[in-house]
Each structure stands twice: as C-alpha cells, then as structure tokens.
C-alpha cells in the first residue's frame, strides 16, 4: 500500500538521474549549473521525506505502478533509510559546493572532459545510493549496487593516468566478483522463497543449507564491495589516487551503500539465520581492520594514503555493532541501541571522512604535494583546512559530544549489558588508534614552516565547505538526542570525568604515534630499543597488509569467508 508522501521515494531516485541526463544533454558550463540545481532539489526532497517520516512515525512506502509484491516492486523508507537519505544529501551537497572550484569548466573552452564527467558521476552516485536506501526487494538492491559501482569506479580514474586506471580496474573487477556472489545468493533465496520482496522473504525463509549459503555468499560479496579487512585490496590505491572531491564521495558514501545492504540482510531479510557466531566473525574482522588500518596509516608518508587507511580502520569500526545487536533470547538480530549506534557511526564517518579528504585536497593544492613530513607550517598558512582535518579526526575519535561519541557510548553499554567485554576493549582501543594518526598529522603541521616553501592560497569557500561537513558530526549528536537516543548520554565535555577521558585518549594516541609512526618529530632518540622494536612490528603489519592485498590471497579470502559464514550459521541452527 502506498503511504502518504510515498511519491517522494521514486523522486529521491529519479531526480539525481534526470539531473545527470539533463547535464549530459546540456554539457559544458551548463552541466555544473544543472548539477547545482539538482543538489538543491534532491536535498529538499530528502528533508521533506524526513518530515513525512517523523510526522507519521511509520515507514514510507511506494508501490510502483500499483502492482503489489510479490509480483510488483515496492520502495520503502524506514528510519534507517530516512536518516541515511538525509545524511547522503547533506554530504553530497557539501562535496558539490567544494568541487565547484576544482571542477569548473576552464575559461576559454566550452567543455572539458574531467569537469563534465565529474558532475555526471556525482549525480549518478547519489541516485544509485538513494536506490540502495529505498529498495524493498533483493533484486532491485542488486541493480542499485551495480549502478553504484559503475558510477564510483570512473571517479577513481578521472585524471586518466596509468596508476589510477590500474586502481580503478582492480576496484571494478574485484567488486564484480562481490556482486556476482550477491546475485547467486539472491537466486538461491528466490528458489527457496519464490519472492525477492524483503518482508515476504523474511516470513518464508527457514534454516536450511541453501539459505545459510545464500546469506553467507551475499554477505561475503557485500564485504568485498565494502572493503572490510581482509577484502580491501582495492581500497587504498583507489581512494588515495582519486581527486579529493572524488575521494570524499568514494570514502564517505560509496562504501556505505554495500554496508547498508549487509544491515538489511542481517536485520530485515533473515534476522534469525546468521546467529551470534557469524556476528563474532564479522566483528572480529572489524577489530582486525581497526588494528591493521590504523597501524599501516601511521606508516604512510602521503596524507591521502593515511586517510585511505583510516577509512579501512573506520569501516572495521562499523561492523563491531553486529554481535552487540544480537538478542540471545529470540536468537535474532534486533533493532535497538546497537543498531542506532552503528548508524550514528556510519553517518559520523561519512561527514568526517568527506571533510578530511577535502582538507587533504586543500593542503595538496596549497603545497603542490601531500607528503606529511613536508607540511610544516601548514597550520599558519592554511588554518581553516588544518582545522577541518582535525575537527574531522576528533569527531571520529569519539571524545567530544559528537555522533561517534554517542555511538561509542551506546556500543559500550550494549557490550557491558551482554557481557562481551572484549568488544569494550576493541572500542576503547579503536579510539586510541584513531587519535594516534590525527595527532601525528597535527604534530607535523604545527611545526615551524620553511618560509621558502610559501603555499598557494586556496579558495575560502572550499575551506568553509570542508569545515562545515566536519562540524556536521556535532550537529548529528544533537539531532540524535532529539530523535532515538536518550539525552542523558550527552555529558558536559568540561566535566572532570569527560575531560580525563578526552585527555587520556589523546595522550595514549600520542604514545602510539611516537612508537609506531615512521616520521615523528625527534622526541625519541633514534637508537631507542623500544621504538626500534615497535617500528619492526609496524613493518610486519605493513608487509602482512601487502601480502593480503595480493590478488590470489584476496580472492581466496573471499571464498573462505563465504564458507566460514555458512559454517557459523550452521552452528547457530
């Protein structure tokens, strides 16, 4: 049944795609104007849909053509979709404002390939993501997932250089393996249930080997597209090589599309099938991602690669909620505070990571490079860019009242309540490790600069766009407190307990950075045995990471994970 306001859902999907088509037809400078108008319209639709959802308190549904499922296709927007629709619209708009300076058609030519393609792909990514968020059946989700990949891959190789083309091809081919596994799982589910409509599948699917393998293969395929460790072979070169306005889209949003489908699968399609053991594997991979991503990030010399590895770590953080959302009494994954925390973390990472990539792009523009060791004096030369980077980093640490802070508190509570103390350790450790690479960059940019390497001035609007997105994470905390989260969780940041926790996170982060980072300000003498040992440990992590990113290893990992999930589900039944 189509609910009031249901028409907004097809509009969410159609408006970006119609904008992309119109921009292609008009071309040149007109394409950018069309894109800007589409951004405004799409943002308005997403907000309106939010108002409709809050007003009715029920999922917004649109039945396409009036044909009821299982024969027809329904679009649905529940609380998860609605919040993500708004978050995606805000982040895309921020990136669009930022990208105007980088991707405007140069004076003297009527059309340039790079800018035109960027605006088309930005709108296409948005439309595909919105389709992922509102799809009500597994096959539409497959099509949306593929559209998202097709729109995301060319963003990697906008500059057409050999290395970025290689990164794009690696991303595309590996993602195709992921999507074909997803499709195979969907086919098996259709064979079992005779429908692909999510609520109907949820009613009809029962524990059986075919169902376990279907869910396991779909999950593994989606993890390959999300780049959860150890299936991340494509992520660092793709996210670090793309232009900053494209990296921001890829890192903040594109990987969230497949993550969102994992949530749909585990919470809506088959909440009773996976069981706790599979969730522990998922979160275990997340913990490994945090460790590897953060320690390898500390060894990077280029700022964009550091941020790309930080994305790897933060993707791991998103998966920690799965075992905490498991309800032992019903044997199912239930929507509760752990899922709310996961969504808060997802949105907080989207805004913060977009801001960090944008800030890194500005520093690159100012200095002509992004070698972290040579960014001394950047704080004085480009204070707003550095501020955007640091605010984004602090928003991810989960120390000050922000989206990630609420997420961490909710997850800590859930871990304590279910007696899974080891996830409390990982959650706290993740905060320390995040602090370490933010502090490392901060330490380099605050050093006294070389007057000879005077940077180029960067546009103020770009700096403001980056900073605004970084600050969104704090606005998110306020929005959450007015919505699903209790306001008691939001403490006074200057209260002694909070202050000590903040200082401790930063202090431990400093310690980790001093021990593991490759290039640190000379506080520790070179011959210090502890530092030498830790450098060797860091090197071992880096080599392991490189070995896991070999094609054959990553391909095998994908299959092994699929079987592992299947076996874990068997133990649950």
């Amino acid at each position, binding site marked *: 049944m189509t609910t009031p306001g249901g028409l907004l859902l097809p509009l969410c999907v159609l408006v970006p795609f119609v904008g992309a088509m119109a921009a292609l037809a008009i071309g040149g400078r007109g394409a950018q104007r069309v894109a800007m108008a589409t951004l405004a319209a799409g943002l308005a639709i997403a907000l309106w849909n939010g108002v409709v959802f809050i007003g009715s308190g029920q999922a917004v549904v649109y039945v396409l053509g009036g044909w009821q499922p299982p*024969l027809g296709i329904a679009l649905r927007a529940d609380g998860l979709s609605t919040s993500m629709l708004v978050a995606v619209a805000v982040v895309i708009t921020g990136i669009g404002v930022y990208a105007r300076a980088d991707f405007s058609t140069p004076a003297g030519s009527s059309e340039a390939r790079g800018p035109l393609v960027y605006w088309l792909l930005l709108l296409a990514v948005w439309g595909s993501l919105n389709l992922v968020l509102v799809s009500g059946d597994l*096959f539409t989700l*497959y*099509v949306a997932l*593929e559209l998202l*990949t*097709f729109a995301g*891959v*060319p963003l990697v*190789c906008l500059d*057409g*250089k*050999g*290395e970025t*083309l*290689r990164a*794009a*091809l*690696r991303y*595309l*081919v590996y993602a*195709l*393996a992921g*999507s*074909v596994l997803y*499709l*195979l799982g969907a*086919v*098996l589910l*259709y*064979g079992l*249930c*005779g*429908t*692909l409509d999510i609520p109907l599948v949820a009613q*009809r699917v029962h524990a059986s080997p075919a169902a376990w393998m279907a869910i396991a293969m779909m999950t593994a395929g989606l993890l390959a597209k999300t780049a959860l460790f150890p299936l991340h*072979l494509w992520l660092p*070169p793709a996210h670090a090589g793309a232009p900053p306005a494209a990296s921001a889209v890829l890192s903040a949003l594109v990987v969230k599309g497949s993550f969102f489908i994992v949530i749909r699968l585990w919470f809506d399609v088959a909440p009773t099938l996976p069981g706790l053991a599979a969730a522990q594997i998922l979160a275990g991979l997340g913990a490994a991602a945090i460790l590897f991503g953060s320690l390898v990030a500390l060894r990077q*010399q280029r700022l964009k690669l550091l941020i790309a590895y930080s994305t790897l770590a933060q993707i791991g953080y998103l998966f920690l909620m799965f075992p905490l959302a498991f309800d032992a009494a019903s044997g199912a994954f239930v929507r509760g505070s752990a899922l709310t925390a996961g969504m808060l973390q997802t949105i907080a990472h989207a805004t913060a990571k977009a801001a960090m990539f944008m800030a890194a792009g500005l520093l690159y523009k100012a200095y002509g490079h992004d*070698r972290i*060791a*040579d960014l*001394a004096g950047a704080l004085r030369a480009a204070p707003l860019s550095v501020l955007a980077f640091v605010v984004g980093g602090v928003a991810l640490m989960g120390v000050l009242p922000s989206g990630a802070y609420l997420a961490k508190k909710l997850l800590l509570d859930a871990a304590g309540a279910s007696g899974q103390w080891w996830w409390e350790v990982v959650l706290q450790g993740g905060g320390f490790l995040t602090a370490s690479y933010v502090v490392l960059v901060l330490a*380099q940019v605050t050093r006294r600069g070389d007057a000879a390497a005077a940077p180029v001035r960067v546009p103020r609007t770009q700096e403001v766009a980056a900073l605004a997105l970084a600050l969104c994470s704090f606005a998110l905390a306020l929005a959450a407190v007015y919505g699903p989260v209790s306001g008691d969780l939001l403490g006074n940041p200057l209260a002694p307990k909070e202050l000590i926790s903040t200082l401790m996170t930063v202090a431990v982060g400093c310690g980790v950075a001093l021990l593991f980072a490759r*290039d640190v*300000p000379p506080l520790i003498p070179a011959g210090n045995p502890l530092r030498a040992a830790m450098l060797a440990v860091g*090197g071992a992590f*880096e*080599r392991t*990471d*490189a070995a896991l*990113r*070999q*094609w*054959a290893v990553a*391909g*095998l990992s994908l*299959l092994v994970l699929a079987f592992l999930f299947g076996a874990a589900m068997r133990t649950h039944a």
Partner: protein
Amino acid sequence: MTGPTLFALVAAALVGTGLYGFIVSPSPLRKILAFNVIGSGVFLMFGVIARRGAIAGIGGDPVPQALLITGIVVAFSATALAITVLLRLAEEAPTTTLEPAPPRGAPDATRTTS
C-alpha cells in the same frame, strides 16, 4: 537424473570454473572472462529455478526470466566498462597487471627526511 538437476550441476560447475579462473589468472582480461563464466553459471541457475516453478508449482515461473534478462544487461555493461578501462590502461601503462606495488623495503629511496 531430471533435467533441472543436470542443469543445476552444470551451473555449479560453471561457477566453480569461473571462480578458479578469477583467482588464479594473472591477466585482467582473463579475470573479466572468468567473471562472465561465473555469471553464466548464475544465469543458468535462474533458468533451473524457473523450470522448477519454485513455490508456485507451475510448469515455468516467468519472474526469474525477467530477472535473468536484467542480470545479463548488467553483466554486459560491467564487462564493457571493465574492457574500456583495461584498453585505456594498456595505452597508458607499460603493464596491465593488477597486483599492488611491492611493499617498501627498508632502504627506501623516495623517503623524505624531516
């Protein structure tokens, strides 16, 4: 052995062969072909499920056939995009291998000192 069972086994063999090629073939073109072999297996599986009539209990279920056509279009687009990127890569770079750059060893020439 009934027809659907035979075809299902063929589909499984295609998926297995494709996955093997996808993992061990060093060349990107072979990986793209392997993806298409896996895809053929999945599409054949669609046909098997349509023939079984699934839950409906009728001779042939039309829904998987509609899905199958869409799936083929998507796989075709994916292949076209991958081949285009591969051709561009062959023009721009000396080699089309997809392996990541080797890890940096201890004597790192590009390292800038602070």
